[in-house]
C-alpha cells in the first residue's frame, strides 16, 4: 500500500492542523516548564526562608566543618590505623545488620511477591491483601520502626535489623512481583500437570527463571541497607553509626575518630557498590542468554 496514491487532507488543512497541534504543545510545555521553574524557585525560597542560615550567607562556609575534621584527622594521622582497627567490629556489626536484614527481607519479600502475583498466588483472593501489606511495609521509614522497636525490645542490633528487613520485604516484594509478572507461566502449568505442590511449582518452575533478577535486586538492596543500617546506628541502634554520632557530637578532640569511621564506612560502601555492580552485570548478561 503506497501513501502516494492516498488522497489525504489538502495540504493547507494538514498545515493548519499541525500548527494547531504545535501551538498546543508549546502551550503545554511552556506551562509545564513554568510550573516546574516556579515550583523549584519558590520551593528554594521557602526552604531558604525556613532555614536558620541562608544559602548565600552560608555557601562560603561550606568547607569549614569538613576542614576542621580533616585538619584534626591529619594532625593525628599516626593514630589512624589504630582507630580503624578499633572501629572494625562496629563496622562488622553494621554490615551484619544489613546482611541479615537483606536476607530475611528478601525471603519475606519473595514469599509476599509469589503470593501476590496473578497466576502464581496460593490464595488468589488474598492478592490485594498481600499487595497492601507490601505497600505499607515499603512506606514505613526504617527509622520509625527501629525507634519504636528499641522502645519495646531494648537497644542493640535486632530492632534495626527488623526495621530494615520489614522495609526491604516491601521494597523487594514489589520489584520481585514485577519480575514474577514477566515470568513465563507455561513451566508452572507443566509442573501442575504432573501433580506438583505449590511450593514445588514455585521453586522448580518459577525460581530458575527469576533467580538472576532476584539476586541482582537483592544485591542492590544490600548496598542500600548498609547505609540504612549505619543511619539507624545514628539514632541509637548500635553499629558504626552510633560511634560516628558520638564522635561527631563531641566535636574537636574526637574528629580523628569521626574521620576513621567515615573512611571505614566510605570504603565499605564503595567496595560493596563496585562488587555488586560487577556481579549484577554478570547476572544480567547471564539472564539475557
Amino acid at each position, binding site marked *: 500500500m503506497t501513501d502516494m496514491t492516498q488522497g489525504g487532507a489538502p495540504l493547507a488543512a494538514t498545515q493548519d492542523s499541525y500548527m494547531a497541534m504545535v501551538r498546543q504543545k508549546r502551550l503545554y510545555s511552556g506551562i509545564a516548564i513554568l510550573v516546574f521553574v516556579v515550583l523549584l524557585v519558590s520551593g528554594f525560597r521557602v526552604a531558604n526562608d525556613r532555614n536558620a542560615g541562608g544559602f548565600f550567607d552560608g555557601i562560603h562556609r561550606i568547607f569549614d566543618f569538613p576542614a576542621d575534621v580533616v585538619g584534626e584527622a591529619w594532625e593525628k594521622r599516626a593514630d589512624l590505623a589504630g582507630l580503624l582497627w578499633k572501629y572494625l567490629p562496629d563496622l562488622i556489626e553494621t554490615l551484619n545488620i544489613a546482611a541479615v536484614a537483606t536476607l530475611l527481607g528478601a525471603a519475606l519479600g519473595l514469599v509476599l511477591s509469589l503470593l501476590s502475583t496473578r497466576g502464581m498466588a496460593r490464595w488468589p483472593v488474598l492478592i490485594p491483601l498481600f499487595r497492601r501489606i507490601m505497600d505499607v511495609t515499603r512506606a514505613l521509614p526504617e527509622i520509625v520502626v527501629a525507634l519504636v522497636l528499641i522502645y519495646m525490645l531494648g537497644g542493640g542490633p535486632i530492632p534495626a535489623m527488623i526495621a530494615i528487613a520489614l522495609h526491604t520485604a516491601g521494597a523487594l516484594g514489589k520489584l520481585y512481583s514485577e519480575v514474577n509478572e514477566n515470568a513465563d507461566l*507455561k513451566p508452572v502449568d507443566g509442573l501442575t500437570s*504432573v501433580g506438583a505442590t505449590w*511450593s514445588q511449582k514455585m521453586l522448580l518452575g518459577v525460581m530458575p527463571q527469576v533467580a538472576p533478577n532476584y539476586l541482582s535486586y537483592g544485591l542492590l538492596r544490600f548496598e542500600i541497607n548498609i547505609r540504612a543500617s549505619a543511619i539507624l546506628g545514628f539514632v541509637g541502634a548500635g553499629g558504626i553509626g552510633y560511634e560516628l554520632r558520638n564522635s561527631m557530637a563531641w566535636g574537636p578532640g574526637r574528629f580523628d575518630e569521626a574521620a576513621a569511621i567515615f573512611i571505614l564506612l566510605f570504603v565499605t560502601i564503595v567496595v560493596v557498590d563496585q562488587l555488586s555492580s560487577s556481579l549484577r552485570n554478570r547476572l544480567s548478561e547471564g539472564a539475557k542468554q
Partner: protein
Amino acid sequence: MLRIEQLTKRFGANAAVDNVSFTIDKTAMIGVIGASGAGKSTLLRMINRLADASEGTIAFQGRDVTRLTGSARRKWQSECAMIFQQFNLVPRMDVVSNVLHGTLNRRSTFSTLFNLYPTEDIHTAIEILDRLGIADHAPKRAEALSGGQQQRVAIARALMQDPQIILADEPIASLDPMNAQIVMDALRRIHEEDGRMVIANLHTLDTARRYCDRVIGMRMGRVVFDGTPDQLTTGVARDIYGAGAEFSEAATSTDINALAEARHAVTA
C-alpha cells in the same frame, strides 16, 4: 476405563466444552480434532484437572476424578500425564531435571527442593531419554534444545510419571514437519510398546488418520464425530471444521510429502 459424561465447561456465558460424553473401553490411541476454539484444549485440561469442570463427570476405572482436591487431585494428575503444545518445560533447567519433574508427586517436597532424587530415578530418566533418542542432550539446559527435542523431553517427563493416560495437547503444532513426525512416532511407539492410553489433540486430519485408532471430532464444544479413521471422509471433515467446498486438506497438512505438494500449489 475412561468415562466422560455430560462434561461441560463454561467461561462466562460461553460453553467451551458443551455436554460432552464418550467412553473409552480399552487402551487406545485417540485423536481429538476440531477447529481452533472447538474446545479440545479445555477438554484435555479438564481431564488432567488443570481446569475444573462446570458440570458432568470424568471417571477413570470406575473412580470419579472430577472433583478431587488437594493431594488426591495431584495424585490423579501424576497418573495422567500431559504434554503441551509449547512443551511447558522449565527452560533454564537441565533436561534430566525436567524429566525428573515427572516424579515430583511421588517424592517429598523437601527432597526435591534439594535435588535429592534417587539414583534409580536418574537412571530411569536417562533410559527414557535414550529411548526417545535424546540421551546425549541430558546435561544441557532445556532452552538450548530445538522444538522437537524439547517436545521429546516433555514426553520423557510424561513417561517418567509412569502414567496410565498420556494427554497430548497439539503436541506437534509448534514443530516443523520433520520433528512432528519424530514426535508422533514416539507417541505411537509408547502406546504400542507400553500399552498406555494416549489422547492427542491434533490440528490436522492426516496425522489423526495416520496415528490414531479412534478419532473424536469436536465443533463448538460438542462432539460431532466419533469413529475410526476410515470413517473420517472429507465430507465429515467439512462438517467438523464448518468449512465450505473450498476446503482442502493439504492446506493444513503437516505431512512432509503433502507439504511439498502444497507449496507447488501456492506458487503455481
